[in-house]
């Protein structure tokens, strides 16, 4: 079995180069990865390669704050399937299901939705940050933060987070086990731009995820034609969603 990627949207904010504090750095970098308070929508293309087979899936994503609705569009067979995220809870809504089915934490174990948390928006809300060291990647200097989960209910206990000093964007993240072993690695690229509060800020365009324990297993998530929009808060609550 291989991982299935669901992801959520990001929030985009201005970067101010005040005195470098890990907390601020983390908060700023989150803005380029999602959690837009008013709302953002985009088309997501997920390409997964496992044991030599590649599958492509497409989704229409609408997100607001820590909630999101992800509607499968391709392959056709999955049309009409909707994944709903309310903060860390996740449901699957299908036309032929009488009611939405909740996906439990146990499901994450079997790799059903573990990647959803990778893309979850507010690291700054869930994790405390500490500056570990500075490092150069492709001769650009990066702050290396070690994020520790504030509560023990987040999917991953620790994350090593590389933030580019210049662009203040998070370029790489290692998701660690409680003992510090690397379980997954994600690499971000920011070629998208979105307008927020009158300013245009860089936004993630591609996320490349690798599972350390699986040799031949890679996923590439592309964010295409982003649009900011205004959604009403109730719109994302699972109870209001009817297929």
């Amino acid at each position: 079995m291989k991982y299935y990627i669901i992801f959520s949207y990001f929030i985009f904010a201005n970067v101010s180069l005040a005195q470098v504090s890990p907390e601020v750095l983390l908060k700023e970098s989150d803005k380029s990865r999602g959690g837009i308070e008013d709302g953002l929508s985009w088309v997501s293309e997920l390409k997964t390669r496992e044991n030599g087979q590649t599958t492509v899936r497409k989704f229409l994503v609408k997100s607001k704050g820590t909630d999101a609705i992800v509607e499968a569009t391709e392959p056709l067979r999955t049309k009409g399937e909707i994944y709903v995220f309310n903060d860390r809870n996740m449901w699957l809504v299908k036309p032929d299901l009488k009611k939405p089915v909740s996906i439990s934490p146990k499901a994450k174990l079997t790799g059903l939705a573990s990647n959803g948390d990778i893309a979850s928006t507010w690291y700054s809300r869930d994790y405390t940050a500490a500056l570990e060291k500075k490092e150069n990647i492709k001769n650009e200097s990066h702050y290396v933060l070690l994020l520790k989960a504030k509560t023990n209910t987040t999917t991953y206990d620790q994350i090593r987070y590389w933030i580019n000093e210049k662009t203040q964007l998070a370029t790489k993240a290692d998701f660690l086990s409680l003992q510090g072993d690397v379980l997954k690695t994600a690499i971000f690229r920011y070629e998208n731009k979105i307008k927020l509060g009158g300013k245009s800020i860089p936004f993630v365009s591609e996320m490349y995820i690798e599972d350390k324990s699986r040799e031949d297993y890679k996923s590439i998530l592309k964010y295409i034609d982003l649009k900011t929009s205004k959604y009403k808060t109730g719109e994302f609550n699972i109870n209001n969603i009817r297929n």
Partner: protein
Amino acid sequence: MIFRIAYRNVKKNWRKSYAAILAIAVGFVAQSLFVGYLDNVEKLFEAMYANKQMYGDLIIEDARRMQSVGKYDPLKYAISADSASQISEWVNQRPDTVHSYVQFLQFSGMITDGKTQLVVVGSGNDHKYSQKMRQAFAWDAKYGTPLEAEPKPLTALLGVQLGSWMGCLPNPTVELNLELTGYPPVIRPFKCSNQLLQVTALTESGQINALNFSIKGLADGGIREIDSRLLLTDLKSIQTLLNTNKITYATLKWNSGVNQHESKKELNKLLKSIDENLHFVSWKEHEDGILFAQSMEILNVFRYFVVIIVLLIAGMSVFNTSIKSVIERVKEIGTLLSLGFKQIHVLQIFLAESLITCLIGNVFGCLIATSITTLLNSLNIGYRAGIYTEATLIQINFIPLAFFNAAIVTFVVSGLTTYFAVKYFINKRIIQNLNG
């Protein structure tokens, strides 16, 4: 004199009563073989549960663990670290009463070798007393080495089937049977295509955690469904994986000769003082050990049925023989009576005679039983009992008590039958005896 007459009579016409002797022998053999076989099966079960799976004498657990709530969320009804340490302390203060005490933390998760990902169900146990409790099964690795051989964290044994799916294959495969003596403590080689296997599981609070285990050996899971999911490791590793210091249950074995009743009361008092949900139960009454009670139940039904039949038949032939020998010697009875011997004396002679025949029968029985036992044990006939992965051997234990009981029963049977046979003739008037 009575005994002398009886002895000489048996010596004189042993040829005539050899069938009775053989019948008694068969009765004797049937009983002792069956009791020996049952004893072996019981000991095998006990060895498998009490030693191999380290259930010892008692399982200490939260009573709700085996109820449906416990099954749904095992960690919620586990024993807290504090309770566990109090129990361990109680144990450490009683080295003379407690033989061995092992703590277990069960878990389920996923295991992957990089290509395949499978469900894994297993447990970590503390290695302090584990080999001592396993006794004959101290060497529990069917292939490779037991974990206790070189105690290092993050080392594990896999079920043979799970191992094969995870690329850990024995070379060559060896056929070992379920035996009281456990596995020969020799390293049977096996090879894993990748040294480390990653085990992922949810921590107590639901976080994903993963550890890499190096596989030191393959162990037999007992039944098929367990063997294809089994992972055994040390307690600390699983507590780290699940990020908890709880234990699911602990098992305890008393030293031999300990007043168990007294110690149990003491332990019960301790447990209730720590947490009123804690209790201890013998594995025989525990849901895990239910198979034992069921098997013994059916075996005992067989046993009593057969023994009754065989003894009835043996009794018949002894009855026949004694009647015949009485008929043959009616004249002799008459003479003895005429000489003033009382009926009781004559009866004693014949009873002594049947005693001697029975003695010979039992001696024969002993010889036949021991020879069959050694023969059967050496043949190593294996059969797969029920759902176990390994075949069990037909082994018959030598039980002096069983021989003794069998002898007693045959004596009683032949004594009774002779009594009735002779009684019939003695009541006849002497004259009828004399004329024969």
